[in-house]
């Protein structure tokens, strides 16, 4: 058996040092190596993806990307690592972990608890689908696409529109396009405050809507299309969504 590869993600340096010390103590009983350390979830994801780590120890309260959001993105990796959450005091998260039997450690972390959690992770314990979303239903800050050995993160606030195509959703930003493996309906539910549906297959960023134009004739009817800031392309509005879009532009 190859030694377990572990990644540490915590925004506080002393907390990372402490985990390293404790891992050292567990090494004899459970051989492992430290594949890398990161001070935030964004960097942590790259390290986890590049190293193919089996376990990630992640702090929950971190700036920019919470530990829970980190775990959601980690699930799309080719070999998703087991995620062990670490928290100083987050009553709501802890309650939710208990209910969903998710493994977590409280700070100050004890070596014995860490060892138990690592053993469980080594035996292949993984989170069930949908558990993280139910623990923290707050919208994510990023959408993620896994590529070989790396993760592409797209800030939700940079997205101009989301368009469903077959089994993927195209994410359009000023910088280009990405394909994510998610359903448009779920994205609409999660980011309802940010995007508005203009068509069965399309959500656009509310704040970028600049107006509407008479569009091309389709099936003998003249439709409307939406003008978005920074985008040449015009996106057709379906008849069904027209009343809602109209109320936004007037």
């Amino acid at each position: 058996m190859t030694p377990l590869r572990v990644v540490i993600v915590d925004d506080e340096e002393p907390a990372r040092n402490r985990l390293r010390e404790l891992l050292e103590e567990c090494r004899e009983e459970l051989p492992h190596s430290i594949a890398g350390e990161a001070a935030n979830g964004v960097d942590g994801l790259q390290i986890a993806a590049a190293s193919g780590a089996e376990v990630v120890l992640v702090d929950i309260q971190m700036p920019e990307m919470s530990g829970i959001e980190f775990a959601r993105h980690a699930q799309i990796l080719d070999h998703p690592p087991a995620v062990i959450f670490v928290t100083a005091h987050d009553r709501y998260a802890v309650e939710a972990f208990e209910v969903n039997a998710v493994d977590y450690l409280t700070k100050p972390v004890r070596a014995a608890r860490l060892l138990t959690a690592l053993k469980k992770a080594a035996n292949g314990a993984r989170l069930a689908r949908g558990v993280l979303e139910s623990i923290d239903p707050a919208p994510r800050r990023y959408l993620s696409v896994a590529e070989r050995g790396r993760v592409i993160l797209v800030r939700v606030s940079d997205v101009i529109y989301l368009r469903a195509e077959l089994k993927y959703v195209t994410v359009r930003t000023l910088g280009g396009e990405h394909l994510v493996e998610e359903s448009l309906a779920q994205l609409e539910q999660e980011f309802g405050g940010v995007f508005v549906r203009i068509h069965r297959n399309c959500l656009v960023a509310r704040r970028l809507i600049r107006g509407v134009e008479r569009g091309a004739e389709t099936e003998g009817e003249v439709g409307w299309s939406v003008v978005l800031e920074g985008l040449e392309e015009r996106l057709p509005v379906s008849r069904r969504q027209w009343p809602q879009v109209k109320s936004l532009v007037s």
Partner: protein
Amino acid sequence: MQSIRQNDLPDALPDFRNLGVMSRVLLSVNALALLIALARSREIGEFAARVTEIAGSLEPVLLGVVIVLYAGSTLLERLAYVHGLLAVFGIVLAVTAAFFPFQPEIDGSGEWRRELVWSLGYAVLGTGVVAWYFHLRNRAFSPTISEARLQALQARIRPHFLFNSLNAVLSLIRKDPKRAEAALEDLSELFRTAMADNHELIALRDELTLCRQYLNLEQLRLGERLRVQWRLDPTVEEALVPPMLLQPLVENAVYHGIEPGIGPGLIEVHIERRDDRLRLKLTNPYHEEYHHRQGNRMALANIRERLQLHFDVEASLDTRIADGRFEIDIVMPYRTSL
């Protein structure tokens, strides 16, 4: 006049330099005068005449009393409650008697002895009513003080801070035992003060020491991310402030302003004296998406309430968001220990 209930404040004279106290004295005495005028008049027309008559003799006396009390407040403060109360009665009687020769109804008809007795009687009655009012107010407010103190206790000790700090100290023990020792000493000091049952005013110097100990601990775990800029007038350290006035605000600034940011963030603390006012201004980076993190409102409401209990209408706490920063502005009377 000691009360059996532990949480009650011992009876004390009100602070005669306080604007709120003064306005209460003036209002209650005038209200009393109106009542007397109403009782002594048999018809509406007579009421107006009575009011003018009473006001003419009352207002100069009242003003005189207020000025003497203001001037003598530091001396009165040192007396025990009963002695202080007797002194106040003495002052009122003396001022009333001193103004008596100038009263309009004195006409040298020999009635003046009776008039003087009546005047002094009214003076004693008015003083008694006002003293009774402040006594009741004291009793009504003392449970609020203990309530506020309890609340403060809850708001102050953020478990998140305690556990994160302990974790940081643990990480130091093997590599840097000296720093770990210093950190634990800071932590103990901080909790000793936070758990103390103290609601007397303290010197700002002590509160600043506490804030620095707290910031040392936060620096330990946040490192470069936490930057603090102090700007203090040299004289402000002597000023008297409620204990735990600044520390919870600095803690809030770290929790809401520094922790949610990846890069370094700056907390600014400016404290200055302007004549008889002390002005504290604290700003930190504002992260909109984190502004709902719990605890902020509670800590602010708690401090606002304690300021009001100590200084009544003479203290204020305002907040605003400007240029991406959250600002807290506190203005309170500048006082030093006697």
